[in-house]
């Protein structure tokens, strides 16, 4: 365990509450690495952090081009924060394209740190600059810091016997060193990382280390920075913390669910951005007994998961929207045969291939209804990266106790974004264990005889003597489970399947409300919009507005207390990164005139946008009252 420490510092220090930095460069420049190193160190320092990686779908778009720009935004603070920041205060631009793509987002008067060596004619042309922005007056409204990073690392790495191309690759560590100095961060974590990553490649390790130190020393000794900045450690609740992305938390949540259910975990998955990392992580846990299969397609993946579930394992599959579309028919089978199953959809911008690395909340209605006929499935959604852990366990708790497939809706922002996670104590987590149907020596086993409370059917696993029976996609005779075409039986079974899922609502926590339970405006959200909504509501409340926030984790069935809650507010605003999918459900179910705020730009809401929308609703209502 490491305790926060800070690097030795000289010069003036400016205290700040919160800083948002965006590292931007070519996709070959290592910006994701730079960003995650800065994040790790910053989290370790004790700040609250929130990150937003933003990278192109192409692994290597043409070097220097606008589509090839890769960015990583981190916001860190001495207080509690919920989002990676609306607009960066500092932009690190490794080439002209990175400057061009990101400049518009920078706050007025913000700082720009550029690698001047990359501002040559070719790169300027590729970025579409008619003239060098460093040489005309176009950046006048900003604090511009020009550093010849390539030249500096060339000097630092002299004598290592590396090619100039290899040396050039270390310039991201130079930039990182500069930022470490500027924000009083220690280099120790990154130095350790370099040593491990490049173990056995001494010259490369040394080059990166030297680049990092050169950047740090540059900050310390040159006079271009008049000050450096201090963002004090945040006052997070007591606990042991680590930094975690949504995908990491999801994978760990499933490992934990398997432990708490005392059952084997089986994952079959077909690679797809941004879900693949869950497959990668669970595949690396062979020593925990977790079985994974990389299937031939998404249908095969969910098929294998259903097969494993039929065999008594915790069968699951992970995917994103296009794969989710392929799984529809098999999900219908899982509904019919009433087996527990968890399907993770890490949503991305669509339709079709859409923008594979960008976030969106467009798959809610597909998860709810995207199958033939009435085929109800519980749908749940984590609100923050760290919460993916608890919600992954929740997904399994519901699936096991109610014998039903469950959809877990994450998204690209949750999946790749990171935040500090207060690591739970394993011993405190409650069991979610269920039993298989016991062997029997009496004939007449009834595979669809339901639990009177939950309506779950027994889990009769092959290998159990006396329970031999047949299941399948054809309609079942109530209780007996044999094939039936009886009209009234079909109607009854349809009602039973719906009621079984509806009863999950008895088994979920009450909806929390942030702020008063009555007021002028309730902002109702779900999924990854949590941070932006919560921050906006905090700001509105601090200005005395009667605004509250409720955030749904359980989307199907909806919590039973929601209807009453909605009635206690004059207005309901529903920000969603889609065209209004949850709003459609809420309006239909509760007949409330919820107002939508819908943007699909492949990125999270900015706090200010939600704030402004809320203000406009409140303002209109004031106008109307007059």
């Amino acid at each position: 365990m490491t305790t926060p420490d800070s690097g030795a510092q000289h010069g003036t220090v400016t205290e700040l509450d919160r800083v948002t930095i965006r590292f931007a460069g070519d996709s070959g420049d290592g910006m994701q690495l730079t960003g995650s190193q800065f994040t790790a160190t910053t989290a370790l320092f004790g700040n609250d952090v929130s990150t937003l990686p933003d990278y192109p779908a192409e692994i290597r778009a043409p070097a220097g081009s606008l589509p090839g720009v890769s960015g990583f935004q981190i916001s860190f603070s001495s207080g509690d924060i919920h989002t990676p920041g609306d607009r960066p205060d500092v932009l690190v631009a490794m080439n002209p394209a990175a400057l061009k793509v990101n400049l518009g987002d920078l706050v007025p008067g913000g700082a720009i740190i550029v690698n001047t060596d990359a501002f040559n004619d070719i790169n300027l042309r590729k970025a579409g600059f008619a003239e060098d922005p460093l040489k005309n007056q176009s950046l006048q409204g900003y604090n511009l810091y020009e550093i010849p990073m390539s030249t500096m690392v060339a000097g630092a790495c002299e004598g290592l016997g590396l090619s100039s191309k290899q040396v050039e690759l270390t310039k991201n560590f130079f930039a990182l060193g500069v930022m470490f100095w500027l924000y009083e961060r220690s280099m120790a974590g990154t130095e350790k990382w370099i040593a491990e990553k490049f173990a056995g490649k001494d010259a490369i390790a040394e080059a990166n280390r030297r680049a990092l130190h050169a950047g740090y020393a540059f900050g310390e000794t040159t006079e271009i920075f008049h000050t450096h900045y201090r963002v004090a450690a945040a006052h997070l609740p007591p606990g042991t913390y680590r930094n975690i992305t949504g995908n990491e938390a999801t994978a760990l949540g499933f490992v934990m669910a398997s432990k708490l259910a005392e059952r084997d975990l089986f994952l079959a998955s077909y690679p797809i951005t941004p879900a693949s990392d869950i497959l990668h992580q669970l595949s690396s846990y062979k020593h925990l007994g977790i079985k994974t299969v990389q299937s031939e397609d998404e249908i095969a993946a969910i098929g294998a998961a259903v097969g494993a579930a039929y065999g008594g394992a915790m069968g699951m599959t992970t995917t994103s929207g296009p794969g989710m579309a392929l799984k529809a028919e098999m999900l219908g089978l899982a509904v019919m045969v009433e087996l527990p199953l968890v399907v993770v959809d890490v949503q991305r911008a669509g339709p079709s291939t859409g923008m594979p690395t960008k976030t969106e909340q467009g798959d809610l209605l597909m998860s709810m209804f995207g199958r033939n006929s009435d085929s109800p499935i519980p749908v749940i959604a984590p609100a923050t990266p760290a919460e993916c852990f608890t919600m992954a366990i929740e997904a399994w708790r519901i699936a096991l106790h109610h014998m039903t497939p469950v959809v877990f809706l994450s998204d690209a922002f949750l999946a790749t974004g990171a935040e500090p996670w207060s690591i739970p104590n394993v011993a405190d987590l409650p069991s979610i264990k269920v039993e298989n149907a016991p062997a029997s020596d009496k004939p007449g086993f009834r595979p669809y005889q339901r639990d009177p409370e939950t309506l779950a059917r027994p889990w009769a696993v092959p290998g159990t003597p006396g329970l031999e029976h047949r299941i399948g996609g054809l309609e079942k005779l109530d209780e007996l489970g044999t094939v039936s075409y009886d009209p009234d039986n079909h109607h009854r079974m349809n009602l039973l399947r719906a009621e079984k899922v509806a009863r999950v609502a008895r088994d979920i926590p009450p909806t929390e409300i942030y702020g008063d339970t009555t007021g002028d405006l309730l902002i109702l959200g779900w999924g990854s919009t949590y941070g932006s909504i919560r921050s906006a509501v905090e700001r509105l409340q601090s200005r005395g507005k009667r605004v509250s926030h409720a955030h749904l984790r359980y989307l199907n069935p909806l919590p039973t207390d929601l209807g009453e809650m909605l009635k206690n507010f004059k207005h309901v605003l529903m920000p969603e990164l889609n065209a209004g999918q949850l709003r459609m459900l809420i309006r239909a179910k509760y007949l409330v005139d919820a107002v939508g705020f819908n943007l699909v730009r492949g990125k999270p809401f900015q706090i200010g946008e939600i704030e402004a929308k809320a203000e406009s609703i409140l303002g209109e209502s004031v106008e109307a009252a007059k």
Partner: protein
Amino acid sequence: MTQSELPVLTKKDFESDQDVRWCPGCGDYSILAQTQKTMPTFGVAKEKIVFISGIGCSGRLPYYMNTYGFHTIHGRAATIATGLKAARPDLMVWVITGDGDALSIGGNHLIHAMRRNVDMKMIMFNNRIYGLTKGQASPTSPIGKKTKSTPLGTIETPIIPLNLVAAAEASFIARSVDTHSEHLQEMMQRAGEHSGAAFLEVLQNCNIFNDGAWRDFTDKSVKEDRMLVLKHGEPMIFGAERNKGIRLNGLQPEVVTIGENGITVADLWVHDETDPDATRTQILSRMWWPDFPVPVGVFRRVPRPTHDQLLVEQIEGAKAARAAKGPVDLQKLLASGETWTVE
């Protein structure tokens, strides 16, 4: 329960209480009967046997077996079997499929189940037609076949199923005929005894929508001359007079007559199920009447570790390697990477 303690089961034990609902005269009845007859021979407890099917007339078979059974969705039975067998290596898994189910909608899963060597025994009922949907062309319908969906005759070249699975690295490949009950039983038994992905094509008659699809060579009166019963280690001889044989000339098979032009039995192609090179399996699979007798029997049977064995082996290996470093601590796993403490 050890095998010796198992009660001796009979065909009757494997019959479920459900009424069989195929058209009278359908070849599926015979396949079902041979399946029920074969099951007791494995010495596997009833509850350890699972029948998984796709959709089609063939897909109904699990309902008639008094074992565990799962009638899944069209084309995907192999995927469910893959997951089941991975999760439960202790079960004996059979997959029942049709020519449309396995080769059309489920074609992708078929080749991957074979290459993975999933320990499943797949029986494909090939009636060269879509039976359940009332008579459309299937991927095995011959060119020119007139069906409801191809009123002027299909213009598509059929798939040779055994050629396809040989290319997909199937470790056990066999063919039989619905009405050749003893041979069919023998093939089922051998498929069941094989460890790994077994593919058994059964030439099945759909007397309603494609009656007599195989009659030209399976009929009792002609089968001796028009079919070749493969026997491991034996020269390929056929014909009512047992005087016809197959000679392999390079990669080209030829029909020869023993005793003519100096041909003796020693010149004939000797069948080797365990031939590691699937090329010769494919040559055999492409032999077809009227140019050749149609081969039935075990085409290929090669040992290869199964998917579930390899999966379990990796897990046990990883567990052992991890155990050497001390017990797994989930608390530590959650705390992997850098951590810090807030007091």
